[in-house]
């Protein structure tokens, strides 16, 4: 069994490791080492990282259901916030670098292009999760309500995966793998909730 203490100790390291790619990419971008079309590359890298982190949160969450890995729960908030950090950078890249604050154009883009609509919606739905991420908020809302709000993560995940699926031009393998993982984890949850918790097994 992994102790909570160990997990808490590794938190700073996990945080630094997870933030590191963003520093490297932004550094490469500024120094002109991100290829011929650096804005696209930066946006893609940040987006891909966001999606992978979202899935990681879900996997960690599922793993923590096992008794001996329960302490992994302590990592969820950290991972969630880092995920938001990447999604925020991804969006900033789109608004600032790609369209240079041309909000009239961006608004049209959000309405007209389904993949952007989904991505934007995902971002919005993530905001309540971020604002209720403190211990205080959990107390204030009661754990039951807080938990309900945080089920939104499933919706955000799906939006993220379809956002990626729709923007992929030809080879849809990668988004489909993500979709497969999400569906699998989702069914694991449902299975546990309805069969194990009710004492069927």
């Amino acid at each position, binding site marked *: 069994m992994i102790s909570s203490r160990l997990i808490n100790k590794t938190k700073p390291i996990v945080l630094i490791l997870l933030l590191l790619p963003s520093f490297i990419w932004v550094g490469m971008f500024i120094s002109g080492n991100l*290829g*011929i*079309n650096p*804005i*696209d590359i930066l946006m893609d890298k940040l987006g891909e990282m966001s999606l992978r982190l979202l899935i990681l949160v879900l996997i960690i969450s599922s793993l923590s259901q096992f008794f001996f890995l329960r302490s992994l729960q302590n990592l969820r908030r950290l991972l969630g916030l880092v995920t938001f950090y990447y999604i925020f950078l991804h969006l900033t890249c789109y608004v600032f*670098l*790609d*369209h*240079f604050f041309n909000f009239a*154009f961006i608004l049209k*883009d959000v309405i*007209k*292009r*389904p*993949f952007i609509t989904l991505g934007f919606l995902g971002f919005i739905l993530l905001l309540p999760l971020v604002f209720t991420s403190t211990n205080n908020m959990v107390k204030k809302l009661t754990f039951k309500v807080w938990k309900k709000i945080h089920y939104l993560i499933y919706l955000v995940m799906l939006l993220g995966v379809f956002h990626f699926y*729709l*923007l992929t*031009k*030809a*080879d*849809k393998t990668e988004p489909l793998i993500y979709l497969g993982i999400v569906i699998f984890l989702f069914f694991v949850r449902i299975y546990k909730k309805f069969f194990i918790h009710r004492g069927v097994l």
Partner: protein
Amino acid sequence: MNKILSSEVTPYTNYLNRRKFIKTASAASLASSLSFSANALHSEDLSKYDKQLYEGDELNTFEEITTYNNFYEFGMGKSDPSNNSSSFNPNPWSIKIEGLVNKSFSINLEDLIKKVTIEDRVYRLRCVEAWSMVIPWQGFSLSKLIELAQPLNSAKFIQFETVFRPEEMSGQNKNFLPWPYVEGLRMDEAMHPLTILSTGLYGHDLLNQNGAPLRLVVPWKYGFKSIKSIVAIRFVDHQPNATWSMTAPSEYGFYSNVNNTVHHPRWTQGTERRIGEFLRRPTLMFNGYEEEVSHLYKGMDLNKFY
């Protein structure tokens, strides 16, 4: 292959240094008020392209043009074609001319080159993915080849086909697109003086990633219409299949003219990023060739025939 006059050919490494060189050169010309020719030290006279450049346009560098490519036969990433195409051998090369012609035949590229005149053509290239470049091509009018092919009156369209060599083109081993890649033009589009078959760029034989040894360039259409590494040219009486419009007909039409009024679900067609620039540019109707080509589509609803 003797496609380009040897005097015009510049060693590859010179191009890679070109950007750096031009920076130095322009700094030098600013420093001294002498009219410093950027090409004095360069084996290819780049100023010859200037008269073909539109105002506000600047040539993209050889490096940009040869390392940022969509050529799915060599992989889906932009740098895959330049990284994965070294085992592709475009020599020797022959092209089949078939379909509704007086007599089908195959012609060696070398023999074909002798019958045509290679010219410089500086064109903008607008990718459907909303990025663009300005490229100094060498090539010849497609109309010249059509003349040689002697099509029958019944020929209304032309279909082009890319070589199929999965052992040299790794992307062709995967089936995310139906291979071989095909594209098509209406006869009057094919005959248009802007339409060329290209054999080189920057005075250099086409590199494999750019569609060696022979590719189409139709500057008023999205880049994917400009089919690469052509092995067959087929004259037909009906609108032929084209790979992308077969794969996703709602997204890519047969015509695929650059048109900022036709919506695409993934990329804005209202603006574009010129490779090397930060701010987006507005996308011009027919990629800025409206005056030259709009008569081809007179009376057509371009939102329907996109």
